[in-house]
């Protein structure tokens, strides 16, 4: 059988803080197919970001095997683009230069005019026209997220890791971004791991939704989202199937969210 693109086998993670060891993630098993869109939902601190860090190769798992495209992830995994939860925009670069940063590197070297064109496309895609010369310190949280998104998309990585990309956006803009992401993912044949607190967003975008239980995180349920594609993200919320899936997953999620607030 052909291997899956991303495979987590009994992956767990604990962190040592001084003398105490904090279990962040209980052993987790998950396989993600090529061109699959998988969304993670779950209470804060259940290890969602930790999983993305491990897939990116920024953090080694404590136990288990993690492989990408059949090979164990040992070092940085440069086949993924990673939009981290806390943005890593360079404060001394303006919006255009932050977005174009990957194209200045030897490995994605693009001529100046090619780079300018791509930056312009990306700026338009994320709706930041007119803000090209602004510095990150002058932008709202939601605008910074969109700059980070554009910086990831501009060099066209095979797999996209997105950690709460649209949390700071207003509801309307969120839908516009969903529409764009869906288009980019299907046109570009991307594989996506997508962390969100917004269950509707997860259902609207994903092929599968993974619900995590509270810390130490564990997979509580994995649900296939059998809504047909392409989806009209602006209207899909009103479909009966969407409502059914939402109710079912919300029942799973709400217990965990409650537990999370108890501790």
């Amino acid at each position, binding site marked *: 059988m052909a291997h899956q693109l991303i495979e987590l086998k009994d992956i767990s993670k604990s962190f040592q803080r001084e003398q105490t060891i904090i279990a962040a993630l209980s052993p987790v098993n998950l396989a993600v197919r090529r061109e699959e869109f998988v969304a993670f939902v779950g209470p804060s601190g259940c290890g969602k970001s930790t999983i993305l860090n491990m897939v990116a190769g920024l953090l080694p798992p404590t136990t288990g095997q993690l492989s990408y495209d059949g090979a164990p992830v040992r070092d940085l995994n440069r086949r*993924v683009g*990673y939009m981290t939860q806390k943005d*890593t925009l360079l404060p001394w*670069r303006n919006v255009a230069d932050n977005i174009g*940063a990957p194209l200045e590197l030897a490995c994605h070297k693009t001529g100046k005019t090619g780079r300018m064109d791509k930056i312009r496309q990306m700026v338009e895609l994320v709706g930041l026209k007119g803000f090209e010369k602004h510095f990150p*310190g002058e932008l709202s949280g939601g605008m910074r997220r969109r700059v980070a998104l554009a910086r990831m998309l501009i060099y066209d990585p095979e797999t996209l890791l997105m950690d709460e990309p649209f949390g700071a956006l207003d509801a309307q803009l969120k839908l516009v971004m969903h529409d764009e992401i869906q288009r980019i993912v299907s046109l570009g044949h991307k594989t996506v791991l997508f962390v969100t607190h917004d269950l509707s967003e997860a259902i609207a975008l994903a092929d599968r939704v993974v619900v995590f239980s509270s810390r130490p995180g564990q997979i509580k349920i994995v649900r296939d989202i059998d809504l047909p594609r392409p989806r009209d993200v602006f209207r899909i919320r009103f479909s009966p199937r969407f409502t059914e899936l939402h109710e079912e997953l919300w029942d799973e999620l709400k217990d965990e969210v409650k537990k999370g607030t108890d501790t």
Partner: protein
Amino acid sequence: MSAQPRDPGAAAAVAVAVMSAAASRTGASESARSVFLHPVGRAAAQIAIVLAMLVLWQFGSGTLFPRVWVSSPSAIFARLVQWFSSGSIWGHMAATVSAAAIGYVLGAAAGVATGLLLGLSRKAEQILSPFVIALYSLPKVALAPFFVIFLGIGIESKIALVAVTVYFLLLYNTLDGLRDLDRGWADAYRLMGANDREIVRNVMLPGIMPWIFSGLRIGVRYAFTAAVLGELLAGNQGIGYLIESSAGQFNSSGIFAGVFILVVCSVVATEVISRAEKFVLHWRN
């Protein structure tokens, strides 16, 4: 040594503190306060304070305070006029400023380079960090006699003393800057495919610029202090030498005139660095 080495930065700071304390006291009533908050009003108040101090100094000298210690503004002014009209001051200024400037540039460049080397190479850091820590607490000016013995009383020993002081300042600032860099920046660049050189160029160097500039700004004071200290200790040229020889002749107006020139040099140099900082770090405003 009959004259104390003076830290021109400290002298300026004291003057400013005195002015602002006086300014805030004068703003007792509401209307007075609003007048002094206005930039023109504030400048007027500051000038008034300086004038008042000069007047007190001028007329207190020889009556309230012994003239041989405090000199007087008019005597100091006369001394300055004499130095500049005879042209004798230029050689001394050139000696001090060039020792400070050359030492500053050499020390700063080497300090930043060493900081980057230690910050970027784990091996170098592990081997060298005990020395760096040990030298941290050493007051570098204590090395002055050592440099005089090895390099003589010429400009070389002053340059060396300045360079060593500024070197360590910039080394520690660079290391602090590297430690304080957001690790996420380098990780993000690495994931995008950057190699080590690209990370140094795009993340580390620009990221530590605020620390380097803060080191460079403080370094101006360090450089003048070290250069003048070297001249006070041993030398036949420079503003420090001028102060020292005035002191030897109980010529207090010469001491004050020398200090005045030092303050002016230091303030001008600091302003140049501050402008460069504003230009390079324009994204912070």
